[in-house]
């Protein structure tokens, strides 16, 4: 149960590939953190650096203030579960007991701990069976048990549910949450599946191209993304992003989208001096849509309708050159005209570079 601090970590593979670009991250003690991002963003590299499997090209790793950058995984007391399910060629009992046996713990103590963990994970009936003959879900549970039995400082998981069948996936997710709650274990979970991250984690670090873009709770990531990448990445589908130009007239300022305008005079102080071009974002589920004209509503044409689960639909609407996606239960047919309203409080404004202003 430690706090982990990554200080200015840069990592280059084989002198050529820049995997991590000067990242710093402070993971609180006892928290469940997810590292989320597209393939190749550096999340697995980060995890392995925390584990001690890789020594970073530059930068330091601290556990509770102690510099562990040069320590082995053993010395850091980390436990790791891999995407590729790792189970040794021995009985389930021996698998789970393995790290304890390696440390030379007395047999009685080992027996106690193994049985306790097996119980927690529902493996008791499998204890005497050869581990490599069981199904994927059970095997991953064995790997999990083996990691937990050591009572490590940190628990690292690298996309552990990718190779597991869907039913076991739900089971193991529930187990992970339970464990984290009961043991107050510091956990770091790497995934590219945001549904997983959003359900499991207390805080998520969204990464892209070797940088951490935002480290925040799922709610804040959703409502207040720090930049356009996070806005677009989080959510299914992500935030609508449209280009706009700042226009000043009659002491009022507007964002001009060619076919419509939005008055943002109240943000004058924040907007001033930040340039002329902006990116405006709003989530599909927040756009209000009607089938009949209304004041302050913008006309658009729905050119594609996707059915989602339940009654929800995803409408693809074009307003001139602007493309918007809207989530609504409203029964709209392809080709119909709709009227849209973008509620001010749900609009997010990003500057040209993509950082959040409002």
């Amino acid at each position, binding site marked *: 149960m430690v706090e982990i601090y990554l200080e200015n970590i840069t990592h280059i593979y084989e002198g050529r590939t820049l995997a991590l670009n000067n990242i710093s991250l402070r993971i609180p003690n006892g928290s469940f953190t997810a590292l989320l991002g597209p393939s190749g963003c550096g999340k697995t590299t980060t995890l392995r650096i925390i*584990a*001690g*499997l890789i020594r970073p090209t530059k930068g330091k790793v601290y556990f509770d203030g102690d510099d562990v950058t040069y320590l*082995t*995984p*053993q010395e850091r007391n*980390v*436990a*790791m579960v*891999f*995407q*590729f399910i*790792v189970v*040794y*060629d*021995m009985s389930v009992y021996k698998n789970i007991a*393995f*790290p304890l046996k*390696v*440390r030379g713990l007395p047999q009685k103590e080992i027996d106690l701990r193994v049985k306790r963990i097996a119980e927690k994970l529902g493996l008791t009936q499998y204890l005497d069976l050869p581990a*490599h003959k069981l199904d994927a879900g059970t095997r991953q549970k064995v*790997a999990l048990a*083996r990691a937990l039995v*050591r009572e490590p400082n940190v628990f690292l998981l690298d996309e552990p549910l990718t190779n597991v069948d869907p039913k076991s996936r739900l089971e193991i997710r529930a187990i992970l949450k339970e464990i984290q709650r009961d043991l107050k274990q510091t956990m770091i979970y790497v995934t590219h599946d945001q549904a997983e991250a959003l359900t499991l984690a207390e805080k998520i670090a969204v990464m892209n191209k070797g940088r951490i873009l935002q480290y925040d709770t799922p709610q804040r990531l959703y409502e207040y993304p720090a930049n356009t990448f996070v806005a677009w990445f989080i959510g299914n589908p992500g935030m609508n992003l449209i280009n706009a130009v700042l226009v000043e007239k009659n002491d009022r300022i507007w964002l001009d989208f060619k076919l419509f305008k939005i008055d943002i005079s109240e943000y004058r102080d924040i907007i001033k001096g930040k340039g002329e071009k902006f990116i405006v974002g709003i989530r599909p589920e927040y756009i209000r849509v009607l089938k009949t004209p209304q004041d302050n509503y913008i006309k658009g044409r729905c050119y594609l309708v996707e059915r989602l689960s339940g009654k929800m639909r995803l409408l693809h609407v074009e307003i001139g050159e602007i493309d918007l996606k809207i989530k609504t239960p409203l029964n709209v047919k392809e080709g119909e005209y709709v009227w849209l309203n973008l509620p001010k409080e749900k609009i997010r404004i990003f500057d040209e570079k993509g950082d959040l202003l409002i």
Partner: protein
Amino acid sequence: MASRKLINIIAWLPVIYSFAIIIMPFASMIYYSLFDYDLGREPIFIGPGNFITLILKDSVFHKAFCLTLLYTAAALAIEFPLGLIIAFLLYRISYGRTLFTIIVILPLTIAPAVAGIIWRLLFDVSYGHVNYYLSLIGIGRIPWLISPQWSIIACIITDIWQWTPFIILVALAGLLALPKELLESAYVDGASAWVTFKDILFPRIKPLIAIVLFLRLVDALKAFDNIYTMTGGGPGTSTTTISIYNYLSLMTFYHVGYGCAISVIFLVFIIILINIIIRRVRHILWRE
């Protein structure tokens, strides 16, 4: 249709070929083993006569049998652990593994007969390299190919030199095929190199090793080339293994009937041995 018939005829050709090249000589061998037949003389049918002589009266054959078993056991007992250890060491290094592997498997690339010739020179009592280097560390001249006891040891050493690389190659390939997460997991769990190998890696390559063990066993029992070029079976009969004795009987002394009988006995022996081993090793080969 015409083409169907043609295919049928063509399909028989390999069968006829096999029959001619393999089955015929094989059948002849069994046939002549029942005769008292020295090349040039008339074959006399004696049924099991040759076999009785070999099993009960021929002390050279008895010695050859024991030598063959000794040679095989000693060679395998050293090749296997040595091969596995070196394979594991190669597995652990990250830089230059390819280069080291190439160097290590060089002995495998030359013909066994050539290996025998090379080592005959190396084992030369007065001018050979082996005795020279031994003298540098204070060990006196060993009468390698002169003494009955040392000559068989020399043969075994040559076999080890040449065939350990085979074990290394296969074991290394097996290890490299394992997922790296397996090794990493063991590392994170804190296992030492030895424990990692023994408990985690080795069980995974057991089927591979079993197959290689099997191949080497049969090969070592039949070993001929390196022994023949190095000692010719001598001095006396001290390196006359079954293969050598077989060859000598047939090609040097032209005891065709007798030589064929030796071949048959050896064949039967190997078949029985293989069957016993497969039965025992089955559960390792097929990891159900």
